[in-house]
């Protein structure tokens, strides 16, 4: 089924909780990509994505504009990611004190998520388009429809997003090379 986000949000609020499933299906990979980029770790990203969706379900009645469900969901993911990072930081501090390790904690970012990390670093408008296109399985036309903008805007945004991504990936490469 390809109903709009707004439709499913309405269904959930009307007492059909199982319809939330469609939104989970639609956005879980997107959230995962976004969070993997932010957190640099697959397991933590998965946990955070689930936490985000569960939280979103119970806060849905506070969502003012159901048509902007996705933007709202990403905002919630950012909050969850921040909380997780804070917890992680505390955990690391404790550990390092305990072990008296003088070595700085290495970022766990694997090569695999370099691209997601670059995506997470994009300004919001570009990030949204990339996430929907590659992790949300939407075509350019689909994105135009969902964001309610002309097709030309979508392709131009994509174009700019690619340029930014390539820049950021190239920089990452340099950093890696310098480290090696």
């Amino acid at each position, binding site marked *: 089924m390809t109903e709009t986000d707004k439709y499913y949000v309405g269904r959930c609020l009307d007492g059909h*909780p199982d319809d939330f499933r469609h939104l989970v299906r639609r956005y879980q990979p997107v959230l995962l990509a976004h969070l993997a980029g932010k957190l640099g770790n697959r397991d933590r990203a998965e946990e955070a994505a689930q936490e985000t969706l569960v939280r979103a379900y119970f806060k849905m009645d506070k969502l003012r504009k159901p048509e902007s469900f996705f933007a709202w969901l990403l905002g919630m993911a950012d909050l969850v990611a921040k909380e997780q990072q804070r917890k992680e930081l505390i955990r690391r501090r404790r550990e390092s004190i305990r072990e008296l390790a003088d070595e700085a904690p290495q970022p766990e970012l694997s090569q695999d998520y370099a*691209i997601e990390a670059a995506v997470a670093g994009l300004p919001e408008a570009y990030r949204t388009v990339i996430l929907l296109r*590659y992790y949300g399985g939407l075509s350019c036309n689909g994105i135009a429809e969902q964001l309610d903008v002309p097709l030309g805007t979508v392709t131009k945004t994509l174009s700019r997003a690619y340029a930014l991504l390539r820049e950021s990936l190239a920089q990452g490469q340099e950093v890696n090379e310098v480290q090696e």
Partner: protein
Amino acid sequence: MNCTECKERLVVYLEGLLDDSQKQTVGEHLNKCEACRAELEGLATLQQRLVNNGKALAQNNREDEVMNRIFCEQNARLKSAAQATAGLRLRRLIMKSSIGKMAIAAAVVLACAGGIYLWSGTQPTVALADVLVKIEQIQAFMYKMTMHMTGPMQNTLLRDAQYEMTALISNDYGMRMDINMVDPNTGQSMTQQMYVLPEQKTIVMLMPQMKKYMRMELDESMFERMQKQSNDPRIMIKQILACKYEELGKSVIDGVEVEGFQTTDPAYSGGMGDVDVKLWVDVKTWLPVRVDMSMKMNEETQMQGTLHDFQWDVPVTASEFTSIIPADYTAGPGDGLKMPPMTEKTAIEGLKLCVDLIGKYPENLNIATIVQMIQESRNSKTPEAQKLRQAVEQAKTDEERTQAIGTMMPLQMLGGFYMSLAQEKKEPAYYGNIVKPGDVAQVLLRWKTAENEYRVIFADLHAETVNAETLAQLEAGLPK
């Protein structure tokens, strides 16, 4: 075309959004220009990485995990009474699940009931009939039942649910059943108590987690049927006696020497699907020790259950069946519903409602199919479905909600009506899978009312009584 123009179009080109002539222009420039080709290659590589990563992430879909977490959390919130009434959304959820539960309860009761009625037609052996006589002398007894149900009639919470029930049946006071439903995936459980009270002709359901109760008033004939169908081993034995059954010979269960009887006669379930019922009787006392049942209502919906731990002649007091609703419980939506009688009139209303809601007749009148259709109708876009949805959504009080739900009752009764026709061996036949609503001359549902006499509900929902010859002609004219 110059390089700037070309680069501007590369994304659109890659996305396949250019028309043929534009594509050609870009293609021509690319042929000539190495810099733009390199740019395209760079873009394509990036795009490919994104596509691959996207696919890798999408592959691992944890949809069920998320939904389970939501339902667990929801349950936890419902259990705290303060939160249960906190918001509009949660109130509606309770309503939804009680429709679900009502449908399930009805299906369970009717399905299991199937278990009881059927053994009465073909030359009863002395043995099995004796068992019946023996149990009928008993005033009250208890048994436990374990049942596992799979299929779409379950709401998400109860998908693949495991039911544990304890039943207490008293000749004087009625029946009480404690039902515990466990979702094996999450370990979440929900309890429910059901009382069948013959004096008041009422069924009372209690939902302790929500402190809600629901009373359902039954029509006389329905009540009798319900009693018959409530896993009462007496009725089971009568039903087995009415069916073709086989003797399984001697065996031992929990150290008790038993003798078994088995039926797979479809009449046992009243046309509900494939059945297999085995009854084991203690050879010394002639009382049942264990009953194994399995029923396949359709491809997706199956039920397997065992009745065990029978206790005979247990002491029962009236108080166990009176004032059963605790003072702090409130009426849930659905309370006060009246079940319409299982009659032709109700069946016609049910069929009409079905057409109004989803624009067609049910494929068949199996209870599982009908429960599925009721769920389907929640997404239907017909005016009638929208109206009903609106009525449910806008209902402010439980009474209004009950009223909205109540309009669905005739549809719920359809399956029961058809099953009763089959159990009473009235040769019912149903053609909803081939006839379209509105046709005056085509048979939709028919059953035998007397020798050489049939009652027919036509596809335009008028009913007539016809003789066998007319019926044969009518049925010959049905679409293939």
